[in-house]
């Protein structure tokens, strides 16, 4: 069964929204280039938005360029201008009006240049020329190379600025045409030449402000490639603040103006003076504090007693030496004394044993002995004489004759030799001899008996 499609009724809003969405989704309409002629141009006095119609022989379309975009235009559009615009198509929801929303606009003719610019930019970007790490600018170039017109304002600005900042930095100018047919080739050659010479540490490539056509050389591929090739760091300084060229993308640094480029490549002399003064002060301070530290250390050591009173230690030694000396002397004295004494003794003993002395002594003794002997002898003689006398007397007294004189007699046996002292020695009848003080008797015993009391 074929069902009749349900009749759908849209609201105007729904329709306009639908169209809006369709246009919004169409990628082709998002970034389009359109060429046409301006009519019905007006600019709102307050908002500064621009409203106009873009037409060609057959048809027309309304267009709007908001202040945010048109502020950057380098010309004031007017009716009858042939222009190339870039933008997108959309619907103004308030009245369902289809409009071209213009983001950028160039006068036609240079529209081609603009397209070429975009194309080259994209191409070089794809090649990676903009992504290569940028070379660092020297902080103090020995010489600055400038590639620009010898007669333009740019070279003057650079020279004057550099003279103001760092006058001792020499400049080597490579004069080139900065506009016209030969400009790009000359600039590219100049950059290559400077790289062959290698007499400068940094290059400023640029020119003063001008129209897109006038700045065009700096959008040329050969210039971009020679900048890319350059071993010397390149500062791109083209036109004014708002001018952006391909050179700016490839260069190692982009300066808004030639003056700014000069400021970039050399420091201000005052900065260097400050830096130098600062370093000088630090140098002095570092050295002074090092010296002070060392001095302090030296003093600390010098102040020690060993240096302040060097003799103290000597005195100690001297005293020690003295005491040792005294002890030595004492010891020696004693030793000598002892030895002296010993010597004396020995000498004494020796003298004692001196032969002379001995002789004398012996002589003395001899004398003494002699005397003694004499004395003794005499005594002895005397004694002996006395003894003799005495003995003589005694002998005399003891003489049997004497005794016999007193009446005693001696009885001998017949033999005449044996003395009869006991009665037992003579038996009656025995012959005996009796000696008397005067003469003798020859007798015979008649009786022998023991005496009763005797």
């Amino acid at each position, binding site marked *: 069964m074929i069902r009749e499609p349900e009749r759908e009724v849209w609201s105007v809003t729904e329709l306009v929204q639908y169209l809006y969405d369709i246009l919004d989704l169409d990628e082709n309409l998002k970034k389009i280039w359109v060429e046409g002629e301006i009519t019905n141009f007006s600019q709102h006095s307050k908002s500064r938005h621009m409203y106009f119609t873009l037409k060609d022989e057959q048809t027309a379309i309304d267009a709007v360029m908001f202040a945010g975009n048109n502020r950057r235009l380098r010309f004031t559009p007017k009716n009858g201008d042939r222009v190339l615009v870039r933008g997108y198509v959309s619907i103004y929801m308030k009245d369902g009006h289809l409009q071209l929303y213009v983001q950028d606009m160039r006068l036609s003719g240079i529209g081609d240049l603009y397209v070429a610019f975009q194309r080259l930019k994209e191409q070089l970007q794809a090649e990676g020329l903009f992504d290569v790490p940028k070379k660092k600018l*020297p*902080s*103090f170039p*020995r010489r600055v190379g400038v590639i620009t017109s*010898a007669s333009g*304002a740019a*070279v*003057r600005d650079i*020279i*004057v600025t*550099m*003279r103001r900042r760092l*006058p*001792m*930095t*020499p*400049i*080597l*100018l*490579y*004069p080139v045409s900065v506009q016209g047919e030969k400009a790009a080739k000359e600039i590219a050659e100049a950059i290559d*030449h400077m790289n062959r010479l290698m007499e400068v540490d940094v290059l400023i490539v640029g020119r003063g402000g001008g129209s897109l056509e006038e700045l065009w050389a700096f959008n040329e591929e050969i210039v971009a490639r020679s900048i890319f090739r350059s071993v010397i760091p390149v500062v791109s300084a083209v036109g004014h603040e708002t001018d952006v060229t391909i050179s700016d993308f490839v260069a190692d640094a982009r300066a808004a103006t030639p003056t700014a480029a000069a400021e970039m490549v050399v420091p201000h*002399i005052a900065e*260097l*003076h400050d*830096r*130098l003064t600062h*370093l*000088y002060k*630090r*140098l002095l301070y*570092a*050295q002074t*504090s*090092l010296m002070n*530290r*060392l001095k302090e250390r030296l003093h600390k050591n010098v102040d020690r007693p060993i240096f302040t009173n060097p003799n103290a230690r000597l005195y100690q030694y001297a005293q020690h030496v003295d005491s040792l000396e005294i002890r030595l002397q004492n010891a020696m004295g004693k030793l000598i004394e002892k030895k002296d004494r010993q010597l004396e003794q020995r000498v004494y003993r020796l003298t004692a044993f001196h032969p002379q002395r001995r002789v004398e002594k012996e002589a003395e003794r001899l004398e003494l002995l002699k005397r003694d002997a004499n004395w003794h002898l005499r005594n002895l003689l005397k004694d002996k004489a006395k003894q003799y006398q005495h003995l003589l007397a005694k002998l005399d007294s003891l003489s049997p004759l004497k005794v016999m004189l007193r009446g005693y007699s001696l009885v001998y046996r017949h033999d005449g030799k044996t003395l009869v002292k006991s009665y037992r020695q003579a038996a009656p009848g025995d012959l005996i001899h009796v000696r008397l003080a005067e003469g003798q008797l020859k007798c015979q015993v008649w009786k022998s008996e023991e005496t009763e009391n005797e």
Partner: protein
Amino acid sequence: MSEPQKNSSLESLPFEEALKRLEEVVEILEKGDTPLEQAIQLFDEGMKLAHICGKKLEWAEQQVEMLVQENGEWVKKLFKVEEDSE
């Protein structure tokens, strides 16, 4: 690079390198552990560098030359700029 440099080579040192060397010398000395003899040498070198750098900064005359092709050869010519043209 902490070895003291010879005097003769100091004079010929480009400003930037002289300044760099001066910085280096200052930094070494600021560490404060340099032996005295070396410190004196470095200080001497530093003072010379400071003097040389200062002298280079005093050089006030600007030299601007222009490369010109004459009879097929590149020569340098003095370039004069009219200052009061602005």
